[in-house]
């Protein structure tokens, strides 16, 4: 299993300097991918632009959206953005798409969410037909998400949780792959959150980020990986469940977090 790390694009206090330094340092420390998240109605940098910046200062880490809310973007423009980031990074883009979890992002974007699932399917098919070399993943929890990932993408991005939750989703992703009659096997990506040495700030960020889920926010905050042992157990758990690449997202915008994470994984 490969281990990547998220970019600080939605944590409080992110700066341009930090973003660039973070990307460089992550690659130097051996992380294999740099991930971004996507929210419109939240203090969050636009994911494709952030990846474009990271592309300029890195050489081999993959650049992955986990996930980008596809239906918010017009497909031709998204295809062009993807082609641009792929070109700037010499083919390192992995475009993870989903329908997202919040209606406010749709409202703010003026997009009707009532057929977002169909829109995403059509978008995935268009992207795939337009460029067969573009890596596509799909995220989301329901049957249709697994079906889309099997029909139009290269694999599935899990939304986070303990290894057991990932295992359940991975089994469904494989089942959908079989159901669709796709040869081979899906790529399986997982994600988690960490804050090493600053549990309070990490939890505060997660409570704020997941406020829209109500009581679930507390649960996410409580699951934040705040000790090296917790990180190790989590990584081992994901590896055992057949995850191909696990991306750990920071919950505190400090470069020291990266060093501590690398140490925990050493």
């Amino acid at each position, binding site marked *: 299993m490969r281990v990547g790390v998220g970019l600080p694009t939605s944590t409080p206090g992110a700066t341009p300097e930090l973003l660039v330094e973070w990307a460089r340092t992550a690659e130097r420390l051996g992380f294999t991918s740099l991930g971004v998240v996507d929210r419109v109605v939240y203090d969050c940098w636009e994911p494709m632009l952030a990846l474009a910046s990271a592309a300029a200062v890195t050489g081999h880490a993959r650049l992955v959206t986990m996930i980008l809310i596809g239906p918010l973007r017009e497909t031709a423009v998204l295809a062009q953005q993807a082609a641009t980031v792929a070109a700037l990074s010499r083919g390192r883009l992995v475009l993870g798409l989903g329908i997202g979890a919040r209606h406010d992002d749709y409202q703010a974007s003026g997009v009707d969410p009532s057929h977002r*699932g*169909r829109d995403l*399917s*059509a978008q995935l*098919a*268009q992207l*795939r*037909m337009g460029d*067969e070399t573009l890596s596509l993943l799909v995220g989301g929890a*329901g*049957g*249709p998400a*697994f*079906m889309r990932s*099997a*029909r*139009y*993408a290269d694999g599935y991005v899990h939304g986070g949780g303990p290894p057991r939750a990932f295992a359940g989703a991975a*089994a*469904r992703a*494989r*089942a*959908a792959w*079989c*159901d*669709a*009659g*796709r*040869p*081979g*096997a899906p790529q399986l990506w997982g994600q988690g959150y960490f804050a090493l040495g600053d549990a309070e700030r990490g939890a505060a960020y997660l409570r704020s980020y997941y406020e829209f889920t*109500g*009581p*679930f926010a*507390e*649960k996410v905050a409580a699951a934040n990986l705040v000790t090296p042992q917790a990180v190790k157990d989590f990584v081992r758990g994901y590896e055992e469940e057949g995850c191909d690449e696990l991306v750990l997202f920071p919950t505190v915008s400090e470069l020291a977090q990266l060093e501590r994470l690398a140490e925990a994984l050493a």
Partner: protein
Amino acid sequence: MRVNVVGAGPAGLYLAILLKKSNRRHQVRVIERNAPDATFGFGVVFSEGSLDELQRADYESYVAITESFASWNPLDVRYRGTTTRIRGNVFSGIARKELLRLLQERADELGVELEFLREVASLEPYLESDLVVGADGANSLTRRTYAEQFRPKLGAHPAKYAWFGADLAFPVFTYIFKETEWGVFQAHCYPFEAHGSTMVVLISEETWRRSGLDEMSEQESLEFTQAVFQDELGAGHRMLGNRSLWMNFPWIACESWHTGNVVILGDAAHTAHFSIGSGTKLALEDAIALARACARWKENREAALTEFEIERQPVVERLQEASRVSADYFASLQRYFTFEPLQFAYQLMTRTPRITHNNLAARDAEFVRSCETWFWSQAGGAAPDGRLVAPPPAFAPLRLREVDLANRLALAPVEDWGAHLRAGAGLVITPLVAVSAEGRIDPTTALAAELPQAPSGGAEVMVSIGHAGRRGAMRPRRQGVDLPLAVPDRWPLISASPLPYAPWTPVPEAADPARLVEPFVEAARQVRELGYRLLELDFSRGYLLASFLSPLANRRTDEYGGSLENRLRGPLAVLAAVRAEWPAELPLGVAYSASDLAPGGLTAADSLEVARRFRAAGADVLRVLTGQTVWETRPEYGRTYGAAYSDRVRNECGVPTIAFGQITTVDEVNTLVAAGRADICILDR
């Protein structure tokens, strides 16, 4: 902390005990509309796992309760005059009255204020406190008062049920299935004291009406039901009533269980069907979790109630899901009444996916061994007489016409099926082999005319012939599914109606029904000439013949569209013609999508009718698939998700089936095959 608990059932009393125990200074009051000794229902049952949690939470009440328990380990299934006993199922029962008495005593001892005979008509007088607990049962006033905050989802199970007592102790937990002229009467009977049992009786809505129970008084209904079960009760024994009314089981689930200082628990918040015997245990565990969260968070009520909810909701959801499967099973088990008693009991035990062949063997090795030997013998396994052990069901042979399959495992590779012949499965099903060049899915799809000679040795091969219809002229599936070839590379498509499969795929022409049959017959001839012995017609997943079956794809106005009869006409013509061509000694299968998994698709009843017609037209085995008849569907993946469809088709229509859908272990295959849910299972790749 001042706490008002509405309702002195097990949840309310137990919570009061635990809160008071955690801090003697808490003022805990329980308000109950009935008298302390007035209780409805007879015994309550605890199944599933241990009561360790109760032991840790309050040792005193744990000891008092468990000392009053009637515990038993075997259960009996009485069906068609036979009793089958299965060991290793730990159940405990206690009279509800006794349970409440013990909890009342303990609450009283700890200084909980108990107010009986006080009707709560409004929560208003009780809100001036730190915590208001709605432990007021399935009909909860608290939940109704805060419906906007709790957002309850309510439903009712279609079957009718009523709680009775009996004046005898059944020897062990007993299921009785009684066939009557009005339909099946089921009783779930648990002994809970030396001379008393609870009998929950279940019947279908039709049976309830046909028997006249719908118009009987409570006394008449009691006498009628007693007469039905008189043989099982034994002469001189009686059933007892206590508000024994026929009801539909209420489904209750709430998005949230708390708002401000109000919280609900137990049946007020969620119900779980009595057939898995977990309602009381869930209620008591709720109380434990809530009391613990209150102790941990002390002043921070919001945090405590949130933690309670987060901890309990996933547990409750899992049990509710299992209980739904179980309730549906009991409501539909008439379809298994052709089963031999042993298989019937096996099917009953494995009704939810939580119990597999291996789990059952751990509980009662002997029962499973007798099931295995029975299964092996009836499957035509060698040396049936006097066998004491046999290979597990997945490895029993199966005969289809004059072809013998070595076992019940099948593989359905999407590429290079020839490489799977010695993988151990008895059957290898090819990917779609096109009956014509226009019928290919993509340029790599094999043509019947181009198949290699039938291989010898290893698995039997079932050649699946079909026409891709509007799902043709696509790119190879390595990159994805239903992505059309570039325009110059495409070939013309046909489908029942000129509707594209997906918005981005080419529009097909309406197929000419007169030209459907010949390519299939010709392909069947070719397949036979190459020496293959099993043939399948692929009428599934949106391919050409599936487009005739599905009302979502078929908009024809001629005699091939509209009614089910008309939509069946094309597929049945192909089936009949191929059956006539295919040698009588060799089996012919059909693959079909038993559900479109989309609104407006094939109805459940039509789906079964399709299977019956296929069987009547000479299909020897049906591969029961789901979905893909239209591009955007709502599949529900999960362990052995396709088995329920296979089960329905096999046992409602009396045709052997091949199940598919997230079947990944031999243990699952053993379970599905032995329980009669499928005859063959396709293992996921």
